[in-house]
């Protein structure tokens, strides 16, 4: 008899059926955004979404204020996976995988993800950073709500960009150490001990600011400007180039567009799979912050407080909302309405799959 085999590993799991072909459905808890699209899509009602508000807001070892909890107060019971799938009901059709906007659920057939199989539809969405345009400012890395971006950069050698150097005329120098104290770059070492007087300038640290020259009481420091003395400006433009790499972890990325929003150049580009709207009824909202805590794209935030005043509304950043609906499911006051008006997906011949995709609209 054909049976599904479930393998649970911490909060992740795999369900596998192997007969004519090997079908494997995997769930990654850290990727799941708790939108519940899988739950409402599953044709055999095998999926159950947990209360993601409570799950994403439990602090196991610390209190809300950040203090460590007393050992007897630590509950581990509520630290659970965001969703469960009944392996006895699941038929491994892959609809949850195809419709998961975060790819937390992934069906593979004989090892090939259905996203790579043409007959299966998949969302048309992307997020990418163009290396030619990127100036490695790291703004996207800071803004990314999923910590999915890593920008590494190699800075130019500072000494190559300094436009001059200083020299000390030791005949005039009295080794008073004033220049050393003034130097903002800690480039000067002065030994004032009688009989052992010396002054050393570290040319790698010196940025040619000339504070030393201006503060020297005996005018012992000479400035040698490369621009003036050598005629042409001798800094090689290639020495000033910042190199690096900007990588988006596509597993964590939800295509919210923060990277594109904060990018000062045209390097970051994205496309969301859904179009629609997000509305918060500020009269119903009690500003509990559950929506802000579950939102995978930081599209909803609670303003930070100064003093004991009640927050009167949540801040909505509509342009970064991916219309996943996790907030709507979590809101205890039914104050949020998320609508999907357009779903962008690759063509398929299956009427059922098209129906399921179209049913996302409301």
């Amino acid at each position, binding site marked *: 008899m054909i049976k599904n085999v479930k393998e649970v590993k911490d909060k992740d799991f795999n369900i596998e059926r192997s007969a004519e072909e090997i079908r494997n459905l995997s769930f990654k808890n850290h990727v799941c955004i708790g939108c519940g699209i899988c739950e409402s899509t599953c044709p055999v009602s095998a999926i159950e979404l947990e209360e993601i508000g*409570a799950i994403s*807001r439990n602090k196991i070892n610390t209190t*809300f204020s950040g203090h460590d909890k007393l050992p007897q*107060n630590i509950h581990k019971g*509520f630290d659970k996976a965001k969703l469960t799938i009944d392996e006895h009901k699941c038929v491994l059709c892959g609809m949850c995988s195809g419709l998961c906007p975060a790819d937390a659920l992934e069906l593979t057939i004989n090892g090939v993800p259905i996203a790579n199989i043409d007959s299966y539809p998949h969302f048309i969405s992307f997020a990418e950073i163009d290396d030619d345009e990127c100036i490695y400012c790291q703004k996207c890395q800071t803004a990314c709500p999923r910590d999915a971006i890593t920008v590494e950069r190699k800075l130019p050698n500072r000494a190559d960009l300094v436009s001059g150097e200083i020299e000390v005329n030791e005949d005039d120098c009295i080794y008073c150490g004033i220049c050393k104290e003034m130097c903002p770059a800690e480039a000067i070492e002065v030994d004032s001990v009688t009989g052992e007087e010396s002054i050393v300038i570290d040319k790698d640290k010196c940025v040619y600011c000339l504070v030393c020259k201006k503060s020297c009481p005996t005018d012992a420091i000479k400035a040698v400007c490369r621009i003036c003395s050598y005629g042409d400006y001798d800094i090689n433009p290639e020495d000033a180039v910042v190199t690096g790499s900007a990588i988006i972890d596509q597993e964590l990325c939800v295509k919210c567009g923060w990277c594109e929003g904060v990018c000062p150049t045209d390097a970051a580009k994205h496309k969301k799979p859904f179009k629609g709207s997000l509305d918060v009824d500020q009269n119903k909202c*009690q500003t509990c912050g559950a929506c802000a805590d579950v939102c995978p794209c930081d599209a909803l935030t609670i303003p930070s407080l100064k003093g004991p005043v009640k927050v009167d509304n949540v801040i909505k950043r509509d342009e970064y909302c991916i219309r996943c609906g996790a907030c709507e499911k979590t*809101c205890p006051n039914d104050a949020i309405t998320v609508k999907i008006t357009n779903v962008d997906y690759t063509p398929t011949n299956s009427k059922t799959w098209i129906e399921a995709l179209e049913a996302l609209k409301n």
Partner: protein
Amino acid sequence: MELKVNQDNCLGCGVCVISCPVNAEISPENAGGNGSKTEEVVTMIENGFVKIFCADKCKKCGTCQMFCPCDAIWVE
């Protein structure tokens, strides 16, 4: 998942009662800290401890568990 309390841990501070967004909707006067006028709320402080009144009204948003200083209330 359901709302649970452990009165042994409870200090009776009432933070959970005030922070609960469902309580705030049902009984806005809760925010003042003098308790609600109706028993139709999710939680209230009774005799110095938190007590669940209408468990079915809880929407499991986790706000109470987040604010409770001593893990006396949580969703599990």
